[in-house]
């Protein structure tokens, strides 16, 4: 499994088995097995292929957004407005549908609105130089607020059948794979390749580890961050298209609170909130862990808010455990 060493670092200690065992992804794989085993024991309905396929509906849209969010957090930025972008993009899709727009418009208007919202975030952060957490708290209110202004307490429900079919039918009938899940898998592979196998991906880590040094190395830090903000608008737009097709309605509170669930996926996936580290396989594993825990617990009728307690504890415990473990093993503390 070890990649060929191109340049040996003279003063670095040789890799040890414990290094590999303590890798975040290894821990996540173990956790995933525990979740699957636990669910299988608790409920006999869990390992049903159609049940599992339906379970993917509940996390695929969030997971698509989490991929873009991961890249953004690796470069020390964050976007809290993603759920609000979903609301605005879903509204645009709804208005287009009420105006009788053809299918291709319904499928592209969400991502297009997403790109506009993302570019606005990116402009405020990289163009004016404002902290992204504050900017996106503001745009989160602004985008969802605009959706609320237009919709009021109304609901848009009349979507054409050929559009809702995308959210409610399988792309592949055996094994049953919904469109959103397949799109997530394809994007995950794409993002994995870009982040881990291209120069662009290495630049993201360089920016996250030391933006100043990256700038002086000739990396266009602000331009890349802007592109990532646009991407973090595009993918919520796409998620909105899929979500709206699946539930067949648009309300102002659509996807409310998703930003925190999406960030939880990314952090549990091992992406450091301080930037500069994290992997796509880690995020994908975290998506499955969170999705299957939620699905398993809802199978045994645990209320949603109790599930969120469990997921919140899991988030803190999963970050705290390695820190405690490293301290117990007497190794120098790694900055989280």
């Amino acid at each position, binding site marked *: 499994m070890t990649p060929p060493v191109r340049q040996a670092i003279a003063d670095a200690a040789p890799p040890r088995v414990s290094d590999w065992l303590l890798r975040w992804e290894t821990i996540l794989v173990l956790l995933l097995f525990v979740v699957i085993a636990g669910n299988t024991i608790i409920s006999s309905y869990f390992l049903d292929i159609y049940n599992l396929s339906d379970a993917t509906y509940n996390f695929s849209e969030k997971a698509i957004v989490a991929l873009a969010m991961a890249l953004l957090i690796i470069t020390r930025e964050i976007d*809290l407005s993603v759920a609000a972008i979903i609301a605005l993009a879903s509204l645009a899709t709804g208005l287009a549908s009420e105006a009788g727009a053809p299918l291709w418009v319904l499928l592209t208007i969400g991502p297009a609105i997403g790109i506009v919202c993302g570019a606005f975030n990116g402009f*405020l952060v990289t163009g*004016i*130089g*404002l*902290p992204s*957490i*504050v*900017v996106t*708290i*503001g*745009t*989160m*209110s*602004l*985008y*969802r*607020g*605009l959706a*609320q*202004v237009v*919709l*009021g*307490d109304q609901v848009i429900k009349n979507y054409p059948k050929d559009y809702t079919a995308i959210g409610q039918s399988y792309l592949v009938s055996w094994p049953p794979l919904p469109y959103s899940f397949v799109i997530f898998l394809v994007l995950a592979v794409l993002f994995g390749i870009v982040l881990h196998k291209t120069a662009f991906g290495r630049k993201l880590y360089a920016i996250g580890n030391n*933006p*100043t040094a990256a*700038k002086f190395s000739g990396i266009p830090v602000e331009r890349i961050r802007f592109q990532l903000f646009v991407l973090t608008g595009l993918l919520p737009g796409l998620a909105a298209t899929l979500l709206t097709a699946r539930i067949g309605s648009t309300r*102002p509170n659509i996807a409310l*609170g998703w930003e*925190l669930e999406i*960030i*939880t996926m990314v*952090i549990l996936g091992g992406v450091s*909130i*301080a930037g500069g580290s994290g992997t796509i396989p880690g995020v994908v594993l975290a998506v499955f862990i969170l999705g299957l825990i939620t699905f398993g617990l809802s199978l045994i009728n645990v*209320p949603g*808010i*109790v599930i*969120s*307690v469990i*997921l*919140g*504890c899991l*988030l*803190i415990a999963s*970050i*705290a455990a390695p*820190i*405690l473990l490293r301290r117990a093993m007497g190794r120098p*503390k790694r*900055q*989280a």
Partner: protein
Amino acid sequence: MSAILKHREAALAAIILAMVAAIGAYAPAFISIPNIVRVLNDTSILAMLALAQMMVILTRGIDLSTASALALAGMISASLAQYHPDLPVIAYIGLAIAVGILLGLINGGLIAILGIPPIVVTLGTLAVYRGMIVVYGGGNQVNASEMGDTFQSFPKLTLFGFSTLFWIMLAVALAVWLFLTMTRTGRGLYAVGGNPVAARYCGISLPRLEILVYTIAGAISGLCGYLWVSRYGVAYSEIASGYELTVIAACVIGGVSIAGGVGTVAGTLLGALFLGVIVNALPVMQVTPFWQMAISGAVILAAVVVNARAEKRGVKLILPEARRAAGAAK
């Protein structure tokens, strides 16, 4: 530096006055004394939460769990009132504050002792504290009729026309101001936020201060939990849901730098008042409440752009030629 800060607060105060005058010109009822008192009473809880949040942000932290802690403390306090409606009111307030302190200590301990980033810890406890309301209360809500009169009448008492809510807020603001300006520990909060490395060389302990501010933030959330529930007469799992972002917005409008080390009591109070005026003005202006969120979003963005000078993350130019070029450009 303080001249600039005073200037910024004066500007914010002027904007608020201009806004109130403009609303008053449209709807004279808005600037009547009873209505102004109502707006101030209404904004008191937000102001207290914003002061707590400001102290946390000063240390380069953030507390996303504040609304959840408020809701949990309020729920527990209300259920004490439900089963023991005849206790003195201080018992209900004390219990809410005690619950808040415990929740704040959990945040502070995880952040200071384990070194987990504040945004991660409080994102987790945001979900956990709110969920605990359902685990604790079994998903039931406590209604006004079940809480008893002692519990509910306290925030409605008035002194010189203002409710106890307002006077408590004034007391909290005064205490925070004294703490931040007159005590060594309070100055330490600015030091660790402004330059953590220098603060450490001066012998200021960041972990100790972190535990302190998150605990204070918890205590204030707990107090506000009692006030919120007793004022609105209902306790259930969704109260103040999402309010943490309004609180942070009040800080940002008030000129608190999210990068730490910059922020004042006066600015934060004005930031809260700004949002309070907007929320209360919309119905007077006959604007549908659906506009509220979009307007506060636009206001937050305008405020950060205006405050951009304090917030700007400049990259220090180290090459002599680059510095000369930048100097020439000026």
